[in-house]
């Protein structure tokens, strides 16, 4: 945790080196190395099973990578943290938020409560002050509620505010999950296929939301997405994984011209 | 040393009853995933029915055991079709709570039928004792051990080498696959409940000949199936037998050396330690719980 002052535009937010995650004999991802700079929208693409989610899980401490890996995160205050070996809840409270490929919302709770859970790390109301409620907890609830309401407005989900999440459509839930991650006010946002399973209109909405977030909050993002059109149009840099191996990294133009990528991935996909 | 051997001997007799109880408990859990809190009440029902059959009506003990086994098994099957079957898909704790409801109903039934007064030990078995050096082993203990062993062996043969036993193992292993192969899970569940209750009922008859008094506290003996089953591994038939013996012996030793108050605590304390150190027991499947 050494405070560093880097001059120039390319302040790194996340630097990962030689990240290998192994399940038995299978390497889900092998020697993945990249760096995401502040304010950047960095995309990770690759066919199913390429190890994209594994990388996110390694960053958030759900899986631990093999020895020799480096995962360094620089928070909004410029402090550098080594994330290796830290537990997920510690990593998250440093300023990293994520969404899940297969939704991990709390279905029994309302939209509002799910979003308020996103505010968990920004509050210190415990079982004592919460139980007393009037005073500290009420003040805190009101403060958090304001942040949450801004997100509700931004994502246009106000009509669902008090509904239980279990009863909402898939598209709304995907949006809500983005909202919950935003409520954490992360310095780095990891989006795991935010557009999967949605129709064209919902996808367009989601792209718009992501663009809004970037322009309004300037959040650094790592995006996993299958839709090549989307990725090529909004990502600044892209890393391509195939069977756990990195086969290319660069700007969208570079990726489109990378022969390995074209043969391994783009060659089998249409609609670039 | 003599005390130790003496306590161990009676512990083995007691443990063999526990093993039988735990076996029935594990069987129900293994095939239906239900943790049966009413298992102790099944045992108690067996003991009280034995009072009626053996003390009041003075019937032959073999006939009584068979008759009680049949009654309790029928109750088990009825419980499956009447109560447990409609509950499929309910959360785990609901199902446990239902068995608590069943336990309360059986208790109330026994209170109505037999009244609140405690009864003395049943004296249907030969009352002499065997002297080996300084060691005194009552015949009751020996018969207890033999009957329990016989029950366990019969069950084991049934479980490992009959078609329905095979189906039970198949359902326990993988319900969907077994159902796809034409095994009727409902039939298997019903048989499991039947045999599980039967084991407890027979154990109840035997225990009624062993214990000092018969009253509603006997259910606590049925609860010993919990530590016995946990120590062995909740889904292991062999584990239940070993666990029963361990609980029986350690309980008698603790009662002998520290006093009767420690009976419950030793059995459940032992279980607690095993749970913390080796949550899947000695024979259980390791991935049964993920933490």
């Amino acid at each position: 945790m050494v405070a560093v002052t880097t001059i120039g535009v390319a302040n790194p937010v996340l630097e990962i080196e030689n990240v290998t995650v192994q399940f038995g004999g299978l390497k889900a991802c092998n020697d993945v190395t990249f760096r995401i700079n502040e304010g950047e929208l960095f995309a990770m693409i690759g066919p199913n099973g390429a190890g994209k989610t594994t990388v996110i899980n390694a960053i958030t401490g759900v899986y631990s990578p093999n020895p020799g890996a480096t995962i360094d995160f620089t928070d909004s205050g410029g402090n550098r943290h080594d994330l290796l070996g830290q537990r997920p809840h510690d990593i998250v409270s440093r300023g990293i938020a994520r969404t899940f490929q297969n939704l991990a919302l709390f279905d029994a709770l309302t939209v509002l409560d799910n979003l308020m859970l996103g505010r968990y790390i920004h509050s210190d109301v415990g079982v004592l002050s919460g139980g007393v409620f009037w005073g500290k907890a009420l003040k805190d609830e009101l403060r958090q509620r304001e942040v949450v309401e801004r997100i509700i407005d931004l994502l246009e989900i106000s009509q669902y505010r008090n509904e239980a999440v279990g009863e909402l459509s898939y598209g709304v839930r995907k949006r809500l999950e983005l909202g919950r991650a935003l409520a954490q006010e992360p310095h780095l946002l990891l989006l795991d296929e935010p557009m999967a399973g949605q129709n064209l209109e919902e996808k367009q909405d989601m792209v718009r939301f992501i663009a809004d977030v970037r322009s309004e909050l300037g959040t650094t993002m790592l995006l996993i997405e299958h839709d090549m059109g989307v990725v090529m149009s909004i990502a600044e840099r892209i890393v391509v994984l195939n069977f756990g191996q990195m086969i290319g990294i660069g700007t969208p133009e570079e990726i489109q011209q990378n022969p390995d990528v074209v043969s391994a991935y783009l060659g089998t996909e249409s609609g670039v | 040393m003599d005390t130790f051997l003496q306590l161990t001997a009676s512990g083995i007799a007691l443990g063999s009853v526990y093993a039988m109880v735990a076996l029935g408990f594990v069987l129900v859990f293994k095939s239906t995933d239900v943790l049966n809190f009413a298992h102790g009440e099944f045992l108690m029902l067996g003991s009280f029915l034995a009072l009626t059959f053996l003390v009041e009506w003075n019937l032959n003990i073999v006939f009584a055991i068979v008759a009680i086994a049949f009654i309790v098994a029928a109750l088990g099957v009825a419980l499956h079709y009447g109560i447990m079957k409609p509950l499929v898909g309910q959360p785990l704790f609901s199902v446990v709570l239902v068995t608590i409801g069943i336990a309360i109903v059986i208790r109330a039934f026994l209170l109505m039928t037999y009244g609140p007064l405690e009864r003395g030990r049943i004296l249907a078995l030969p009352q002499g004792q065997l002297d080996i050096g300084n060691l005194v082993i009552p015949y009751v203990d020996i018969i207890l051990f033999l009957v329990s062993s016989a029950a366990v062996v019969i069950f084991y043969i049934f479980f490992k080498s009959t078609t329905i036993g095979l189906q039970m193992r198949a359902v326990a292993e993988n319900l969907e696959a077994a159902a796809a192969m034409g095994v009727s899970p409902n039939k298997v569940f019903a048989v499991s409940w039947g045999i599980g209750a039967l084991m407890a009922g027979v154990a109840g008859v035997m225990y009624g000949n062993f214990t000092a008094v018969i009253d509603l506290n006997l259910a606590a003996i049925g609860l010993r199936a919990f530590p016995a089953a946990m120590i062995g591994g909740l889904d292991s038939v062999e584990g239940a037998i070993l666990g029963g013996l361990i609980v029986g012996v350690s309980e008698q030793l603790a009662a002998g050396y520290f006093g009767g108050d420690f009976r419950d605590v030793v059995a459940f304390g032992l279980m607690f330690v095993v749970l913390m150190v080796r949550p899947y027991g000695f024979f259980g499947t390791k991935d049964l719980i993920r933490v």
Partner: protein
Amino acid sequence: MSGKYITDYREDLRLIKTTPQRIVLVVGVLATIAIPFILQIDWDPPFDYPWRAWGTALNLALAWAIGAAAFNLLLGYTGQISIAHAAFLIVGSMTGAILGQGAFGLGWSLWVILPIAAVVGAVIGVLVGLPALRVRGLYLFMATLAVHFGAILLFRKYQLATTKFNAITYPAPSIPSWLHWLPFINPDEAGEFLIKGDFRWFWVIMPITSLCIIYMVNVLRTREGRAFVAVRDNDVAAALLGINVARTKLRAFAASSAMVTVSGVLLAYFITARSDESWSIEIILDVAIMTVVGGFSTIRGGVLGAFFFFMAPLWLEWIRGWGFIDSVDWIKKNGANIDVMIFGLAIIVVLVFKPEGLAGLWADIKRYFKQWPFKY
């Protein structure tokens, strides 16, 4: 449809938002104040029912309501199946005995003991919660069963060391003399105002129960409460929101155990005597009846369940008094046993047909009236 618009967040956070709710609250408070007075009256026939029995049942129900609701806080909201809960009633009665003004106590007043008991309960609750970090579900249930037997042994040993084979007794607490200027406080000849009898106890238990219930409701509607549910539903996702899952579980254990311990102290002092027999394993069956029939996933369910458990026998007894039923010999002989059987059957029926219990029924009725005359 209730046509009420909420215009600011503070208003939205209120527990009482609509006019009907306000009416229910006022009526409820008035009724609560009136009930003990009504129960005091010696009614003439045909209302000459022994109402005083209701006073005891009411106090027991109120004191138990804390425990039952706290059980639901742990089971319903946090998803931790802990039977050790009954053990905290024992912890409560032991704390009350060790610190209290009984023959072997330190001589402290009940009003001091109650908050201390809450702290003691919370601390032991954290210890008992530790296994929850290692095992879960049924395995936790089993592990906590061991705690229950340990607590019974401890109580038995304490009882043996102090009162031998007699039950431990709890003297009636008194209102401190500097509060004697309060209205309705009329000291006796000895210059003391003892809390004795159902009427006086009601004014002690009812406010404490209300405070405890409000405390739990508040915990559940703020940050930690949401974290409890998050841990229950998906602990990995919870951790990835920055929730320390282990610590959150322990907090739930602490909060819930503190409440049950308070309930245990109140019960001990209200009943005035406790022995190892009072806290047998059957206490678990009682808790099961309350929480299942009430509904085991809400605070309201715990409270309703406690009332059901203590009030239903009175209604059943009343029904048994009807002429034609009273004439059946068997029913007369087995009165209390029939109650127990009805309780057991109630558990089964509720879980098979209405798993949400009385609290669910309440919600259904509310929905029906809210949407009337529309069916859906």
